[in-house]
């Protein structure tokens, strides 16, 4: 009896310590050349800086980005280039990439 509880207790301890409860998601970053291909001109050009996001040169509040991208997508925009300036964090970049993906627009990253 004691050996059984010992084993179960050890198993419990192992699973308690080694399992994770955070949930993960993934964003494909696209194949090589999607960002660097200089051939065709993108339909949308967005820049991300410390003070916010600009889409085609127009400042866009975080709350209206999704709406504006949907409008641009309906108007026929298919591809976009995103340029991250100094001061932008990865979190800001990924938030914007996610919104582009939700609107169905191909995104390339500019250097």
């Amino acid at each position: 009896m004691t050996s059984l509880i010992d084993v179960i207790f050890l198993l419990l301890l192992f699973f308690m310590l080694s399992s994770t409860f955070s949930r993960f998601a993934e964003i494909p970053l696209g194949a090589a050349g999607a960002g660097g291909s200089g051939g065709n001109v993108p339909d949308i050009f967005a820049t991300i800086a410390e003070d916010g996001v600009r889409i085609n040169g127009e400042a866009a509040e975080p709350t209206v980005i999704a709406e504006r991208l949907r409008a641009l997508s309906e108007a026929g925009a298919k591809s976009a280039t995103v340029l991250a300036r100094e001061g932008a964090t990865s979190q800001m970049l990924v938030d914007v990439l996610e919104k582009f993906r939700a609107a169905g627009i191909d995104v390339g990253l500019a250097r």
Partner: protein
Amino acid sequence: MSRLTTRPMPKRQGDSTIALINIVFLMLIFFLIAGTLAPPVDKELDPVTTEDSLPSRPPDALALDAEGAFTWRGQPISVEEIAGAKAELGLEGPLRLIVDKSLPAPLLIERISALRAAGLPDLVLVTERRTEPAR
């Protein structure tokens, strides 16, 4: 007479052990089902969060910390070694990358092109999913 009075004692002890085993067993089942086992990523890393991307399995991923340094399963690694380490572990498919949220974005883009230059063109960014959208 005295034997009669001491008899219930060992029986009660057995009962409490079974109750304890039951509780511990239920906890074990809970952790087995609710938790997911995954190799550890960098403990210091605070990954980028997203709200509505595709759910994915826990990362066995290359970590990129806030200073732009790569770690693989807790060990620092250089860009040249990554392709070899991935092949050695027999990981198929795209390279999974988990990034600290405070890493400057230009540095992230630079690291991504460094990885592509090192022969790893297929990259997937793993993020932590916020369960409740903050709206």
